[in-house]
């Protein structure tokens, strides 16, 4: 076990998979000679060369489609889209081809592509560099969506995503690449379906994913320390498909649910988890589920306004206290 950074975990997964299989290759803007905006491909250009570590032109839909086409022949591209804000441009190929080709060919073709891309609100990047797009991707049948919240998950999910025969979108976070965490030394794979209980508790479940897992964990500490509320934190690191069983299991234990998301509320993870609770374990509830979401605005540039647009730990604590009638 070693403590490494998020980007190092990604780099290690890339490196191992490329060393194992000559048909694994990676591509994206500035990932080769420049070493990658977030260093996820650092050193790989020198090791594997320009044909397998490809600096692409700024043609998101084009190179995503190219990756998908190559996957029809058994290649396993790992495509980095510099920011989810730019992934909008690749949606045609991702949704119209990757997500549907296995189905519409009657099972003849597969599109085992991995697309990694960071989203979220970083620091004063403004409206066009702060999108949170997971909700868009997770609504598409035929596409898997995962979102790692730690170096351990980043490594294990990328490893599985490369080997899986389905197209996988990995939603990373701009602010997490330098985060440190323990990663086992031996090779491992994380399931592409499921969730993880990142803190056990009995009074309320806080559902988070990606960065909001940390808000949930810190809120849980405060709730336990100051308010005698024992919160469970569930990390929904697989967004599509969502872990219905895991959601049901936790809510059946705590009977209360708060979903915390960095994105705007409409048609999002919170809405979807609420619907699952409604459908699968409504009668387990002691209180109506609550969402803690971003404001329904583009992200402003001004730092104070930017912070006000997305939730924080205190919003989570407040939502739980309100649920318990403590405010």
């Amino acid at each position, binding site marked *: 076990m070693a403590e490494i950074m998020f980007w190092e975990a990604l780099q290690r997964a890339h490196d191992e998979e490329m060393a194992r299989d000559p048909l694994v290759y990676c591509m994206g803007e500035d990932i080769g000679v420049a070493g990658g905006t977030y260093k996820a491909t650092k050193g790989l250009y020198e090791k594997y060369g320009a044909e397998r570590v490809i600096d692409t*032109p700024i043609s998101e839909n*084009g*190179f995503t489609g*190219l990756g998908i*086409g190559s996957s029809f022949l058994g290649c396993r591209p790992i495509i980095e889209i510099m920011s989810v804000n730019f992934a909008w441009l690749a949606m045609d190929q991702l949704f119209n081809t990757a997500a549907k080709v296995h189905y*519409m060919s009657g*099972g003849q073709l597969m599109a085992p592509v991995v697309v990694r891309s960071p989203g979220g609100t970083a620091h004063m990047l403004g409206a066009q560099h702060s999108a949170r797009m997971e909700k868009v991707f997770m609504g598409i049948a*035929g596409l898997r969506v995962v979102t790692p919240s730690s170096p351990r998950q980043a490594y294990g999910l990328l490893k599985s*995503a490369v080997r899986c025969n389905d197209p996988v979108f990995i939603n990373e976070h701009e602010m997490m690449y330098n985060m440190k965490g323990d990663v086992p030394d031996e*090779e491992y794979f994380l399931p592409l379906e499921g969730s993880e209980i990142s803190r056990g508790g009995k009074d309320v479940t806080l559902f988070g994913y990606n960065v909001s897992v940390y808000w949930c964990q810190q809120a849980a500490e405060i709730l336990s320390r100051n308010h005698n509320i024992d919160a469970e934190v569930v990390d929904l690191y697989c967004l599509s498909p969502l872990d219905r069983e895991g959601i049901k299991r936790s809510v059946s234990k705590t009977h209360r649910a708060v979903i915390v998301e960095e994105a705007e509320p409409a048609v999002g993870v919170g809405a979807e988890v609420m619907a699952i609770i409604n459908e699968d374990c409504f009668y387990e509830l002691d209180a109506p589920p609550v969402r803690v979401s971003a404001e329904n605005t583009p992200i402003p540039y001004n730092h104070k306004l930017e912070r006000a647009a997305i939730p924080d730990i205190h919003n989570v604590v407040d939502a739980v206290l309100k649920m318990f009638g403590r405010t």
Partner: protein
Amino acid sequence: MDSDLKKKLLREMLFARRFEERCYEAYVERKIGGFLHLYSGEEACAHGVLEAARPGQDYVITSYRDHVHAIKCGMDPKVVMAELFAKETGCCKGLGGSMHIFGVEQRFMGGYALVGGPFPLAAGIAKGIQMKGGDEICICFLGDAANNQGTFHESLNMAKLWNLPVLYVCENNLYGIGTRIDRSTAVVDQYKRVSSYNIPSAQADGQDVEVVYEAAQKAVDHVRSGKGPYFLELMTYRYRGHSMSDSNAYREKKEERMWGGRDPIIMLRDSLIEAGETSAEKFKAMDAEILEEIENEVIRFAEESPEPSMDLLHKYVMTENDPYVKGGSK
């Protein structure tokens, strides 16, 4: 082109025409649903190009106007028709439809319904060929109007940049649905548009299969010899509306008559008759034979095949039993 090859192509193109026209009828009879785009009038394009390549070995990808390319790649017309009839015996088990014919065994990598979508997919298939180290090429057939998509420019740029073995064939039938090319496209000659990517290109008569074949031989040789992408523009015309739901009211009768007089099948037939290689009677007999084959084998197979079972609804959303979904075998 020797006369045996000409005769073979005449039969194939006539079969394609009859196949498409029978689809028209089946659509009217409501046996075929959805959108149906017919290839009548454009047969020399697919046949001339693929004859110059290695169908079944080279990879082929195209748009929704895809039946004839699929058959020329070696797919069984019965299985194509069964797909159009939405039957379980269809190539995609009734999940694809007319716009999504796939025959991966024959390396027909599919018909796609998003205009311009196959441009980057073709470049990617070529990338796959390059990585695996074969001497196959990828041939991408698309319409003229598709060239106004961003994917056209993005893909040509990457194909040239990475020297990918891909041949882009532009079937220029002068229209994107009801909009004539000069009303949608600043540069009407499509082959000129690729010069900004330094990709060699040519324009040829798409109604004369011999001309297509010769132009395609040059194009295929270029790509197969490792010199990178090539762009071939074929001037052609579709005889039917864009799809079955198209009024086809936007074209002048004079224009239709002019192109009707340049029917690729009639032109080839007449040149063979002139050379004494066939006769009007022989041609008629061949036609009758084809019609019978289509009726008694192709249509019958499609008609008599069962509908897909209901469990197919969920079967191919994701690949089945992938161990890595559960976190690997370890």
